[in-house]
């Protein structure tokens, strides 16, 4: 089998090419669910599932799709998996389904999936594409969890619904409101980009 090694794919998806902090895509639906960690986790899992299986499917049939309609085909493939996720959540976790509201459906328009299908699955074997989907999904989930960790801890004093900070803690209302998500993501992007910058400099020093 040709293609990238598993380790390389995971390193790329989670850190080097992290969809959110590196490429700034897919944050449309990312921020809205970050007020609680549980929502973020479910959203992350749903996205990982959809990305992995869409990439697998696109990769399997990539040689049979005419070039000019491939976008349409990809969107349809993604929608099918999103419908599966939506029905699954409705059937087994109706409360979660209500909490996520329209954001489950919005996974379809999440640029990460289209981007990975177009940029990776289109030219790579199925197994690698599947792994790539999982890796990108994990990269996405980690960022979501990081944001929601701060928001839930400071906004409600809980982690995954368990009380962590007791009565002396005054909840920060701003953490429950949307603006905080922008600030926290901005700071995360700042931190990550500084790290990239540093790694880049070290690499250049090593080669010269």
């Amino acid at each position, binding site marked *: 089998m040709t293609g990238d090694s598993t380790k390389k794919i995971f390193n790329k998806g989670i850190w080097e090419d992290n969809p959110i902090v590196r490429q700034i895509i*897919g944050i*449309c639906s990312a921020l809205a669910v970050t007020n609680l960690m549980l929502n973020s986790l479910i959203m992350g899992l749903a996205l990982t599932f959809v990305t992995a299986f869409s990439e697998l499917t696109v990769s399997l049939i990539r040689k049979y799709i005419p070039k000019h309609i491939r976008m349409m085909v990809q969107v349809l493939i993604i929608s099918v998996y999103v419908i599966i996720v939506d029905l699954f959540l409705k059937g087994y976790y109706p409360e979660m389904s209500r909490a996520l509201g329209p954001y489950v459906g919005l996974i379809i328009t999440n*640029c990460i999936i289209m981007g990975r299908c177009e940029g990776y699955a289109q030219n790579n074997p199925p197994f690698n594409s599947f792994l790539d989907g999982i890796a990108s999904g994990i990269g996405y989930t980690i960022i979501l969890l990081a944001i929601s960790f701060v928001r839930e801890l400071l906004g409600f004093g809980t982690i995954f619904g368990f009380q962590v900070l007791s009565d002396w803690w005054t909840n920060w209302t701003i953490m429950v409101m949307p603006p905080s998500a922008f600030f926290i993501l*901005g700071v995360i992007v700042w931190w990550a*980009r500084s790290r990239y910058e540093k790694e880049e400099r070290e690499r250049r020093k090593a080669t010269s």
Partner: protein
Amino acid sequence: MIELNPFIIFIAAIFTNNMIFSYFLGMCSFISVSNEIPTSLGLGQAVTFVLTFTTMLNYIIYHNILVPLNLEYLRFIVFIVSIAAFVQLVEMIIERYFSNLYYTLGIFLPLITVNCAILGVSLFMVIRNYTFLQSVGYAVGSGLGWTLAIVAMAGAKQRIKNNKLPKGLEGPGITLIITGLMALAFVGFSGIVQIQ
């Protein structure tokens, strides 16, 4: 559910329930295209236009075809296909008659298909059981609210273009921080009207 006047929904969609500042929808193009005011304005108009007509189209399809046939769960596919088809149509029209606009917006038009705001409005319309007029008010308001946000962002970005920033904060980082500040300002509107 209380019957809301479409005009109230329209105002709420611009200020208190702004697509970007309270629902985080349409962020991808918001961050990457908001460098110049004219371009942002063009994209904003395109989004408002597409948003209004696809929402009407989706309302008609959903209530006249999907509901009678008990096929509500197919709405994701149907909505995205009708949006994609409509964007394709608009692209052809713009290319034919407004070639100037086409050169500035050409590459972004396909992006509109995957602009979360457009699908988002259609899905909100279904979840909140809006009537036709309410949906139209909501769609136009959301589009204008989105335009307002992206134009304001482009203006702010032009102001800080020549300022020195920490290396890692350049580009998306500062954009997110500014968005946060704007969102904070928009929270101030929340007393006017509130829709859920």
